[in-house]
């Protein structure tokens, strides 16, 4: 492996890792606060990619508008998803296998969104062109496009903003409280009936913004959410379900593995290698980097 390859890997890791982090951080936030695995996050990415296409290609506006609209659209849809597929089950959460049922219901919502998009837009992949062109030549032949750099930076800023929100604001603390002890949080007066949909809305909105970026890197299509969903699952398991710092580390780790695999064995085998990695993690250390063993193992 040459130095060019190495630098290329680092650049890809930086970009992919940042965006993967943005996709996955919502998922782990939802798991921490609601104890569910939200399988609709992938479809939020897909919706974001279409918003990106609509704003940048069809309307010709600038990327900030795309980001804002994607945020708004997926925030609303995420809230809606929670109200429709999770909230009705909350009452029975102790009688049923809550985690698995919500896995199915959020998955059902994902199916609906994906196939509505398929019906409306058709299966073709659409390019999402950003207005920023050009890039930095980081090393001989390794180009870091400004567009990708901007995406990575915005992703990092958003993740940091989420961290600050959770650490310092009243509602952010309330989300953390609910994640740590639901009953105690309710005793403090935290209105969980409002907090849950808002948390899912927020998480979905982050995935939606990531969708704008991924649409730009790849394309917008109804299937555009499938792979991000799987990547998000891999990242959150690797990092430890419910742990935000774990997810961030894991996102870069997964980005690194994928970038290295692509150089060593080619793109086709990169994803199966990730699956093999997560398979190994689930067998050996299911709680991932920073999760609690008691939550993963029987």
């Amino acid at each position: 492996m040459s130095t060019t390859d190495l630098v290329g890997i680092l650049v890809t890791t930086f970009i992919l890792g940042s965006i993967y982090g943005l996709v996955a951080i919502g998922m782990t936030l939802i798991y921490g606060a609601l104890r569910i695995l939200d399988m609709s996050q992938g479809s939020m990415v897909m919706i974001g990619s279409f918003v990106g296409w609509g704003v940048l290609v069809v309307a010709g506006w600038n990327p900030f508008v795309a980001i804002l609209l994607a945020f708004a659209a997926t925030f609303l849809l995420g809230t809606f998803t929670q109200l429709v597929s999770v909230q009705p089950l909350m009452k029975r959460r102790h009688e049923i296998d809550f985690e698995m049922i919500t896995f199915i219901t959020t998955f059902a919502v994902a199916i609906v969104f994906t196939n509505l998009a398929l019906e409306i837009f058709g299966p073709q992949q659409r390019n999402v062109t950003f207005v920023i062109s050009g890039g930095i030549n980081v090393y001989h032949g390794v180009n870091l496009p400004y567009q990708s750099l901007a995406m990575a930076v915005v992703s990092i800023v958003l993740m940091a903003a989420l961290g600050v929100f959770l650490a310092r604001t009243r509602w952010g603390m309330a989300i953390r409280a609910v994640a740590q002890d639901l009953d105690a949080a309710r005793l403090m007066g935290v209105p969980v009936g409002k907090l849950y949909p808002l948390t899912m809305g927020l998480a979905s909105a982050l995935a939606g913004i990531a969708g704008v970026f991924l649409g730009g890197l790849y394309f917008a299509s109804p299937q555009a959410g499938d792979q991000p969903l799987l990547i998000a699952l891999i990242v959150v398991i690797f990092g430890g379900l419910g742990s935000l710092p774990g997810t961030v580390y894991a996102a870069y780790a997964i980005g690194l593995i994928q970038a290295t695999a692509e150089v060593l064995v080619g793109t086709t085998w990169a994803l199966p290698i990730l699956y093999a990695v997560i398979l190994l993690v689930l067998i050996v250390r299911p709680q991932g980097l920073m999760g609690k063993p008691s939550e993963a193992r029987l």
Partner: protein
Amino acid sequence: MTAPILAVTDLWAGYGRAPVIRGLEVAVAPGEVAVIIGPNGHGKTTFLRAVSGLLKPSRGEVLLDGEPVQGRAPEYVSLLGLVHVPQGDGLFAEMTVEENLLMGAFPASSWRARRRALARAYELFPGVRDRARQRARTLSGGERRLTALARGLMRPSRIMLIDEPSLGLAPVAIDTVYGAIAELKASSTTILLVEENFTHVGGIADAVHIVEMGVIVRSGSFDDLSRDPTVVGTYLGSL
């Protein structure tokens, strides 16, 4: 006779099909410290949970300052001024002491109001202030208990429910905790406290109720009950 802050009538509640509380009735007057004593499994914790809304009773009425709250969500009941310090403290393990206290003031929407409540709590509980930046899960048993009590003070309350403050603590820590409770009593906080045995409550209890099989079987003052040989034998253990 002023209206009670808390009036519980014919309360039935439990988990699944078996009721743990079977027609419990009790009233707590404003400013009073009422203590419920009883063996484990006879409904002490279940009762507090049914009052604060964590558990939905199947029958009966709970009036908080005249307003029926039975079966309402705990978020709602707590906003009406009921503070429940649960068994096991209910602290947020990964948060610092200060964050835990701030969560206690969650209903206060202004940052300043929360900070003011924090300052007041620190004044009453200097030991807690010393540990402000410490993560809750690293605290000792006594420190956790005090933090939970301090957190209970973070918002205006009509009544404070305290579940087994002496549970799992060494005697020295128990004394500290009850000292703190005595301070709360001195500042006219209405308290409903449950304990397994009433060794420590002598100094603070205005009324003692004994619960057996989910009902109050006897009530009286601490002095009266501590002179009754059957009560002493069952509940006092070693004085």
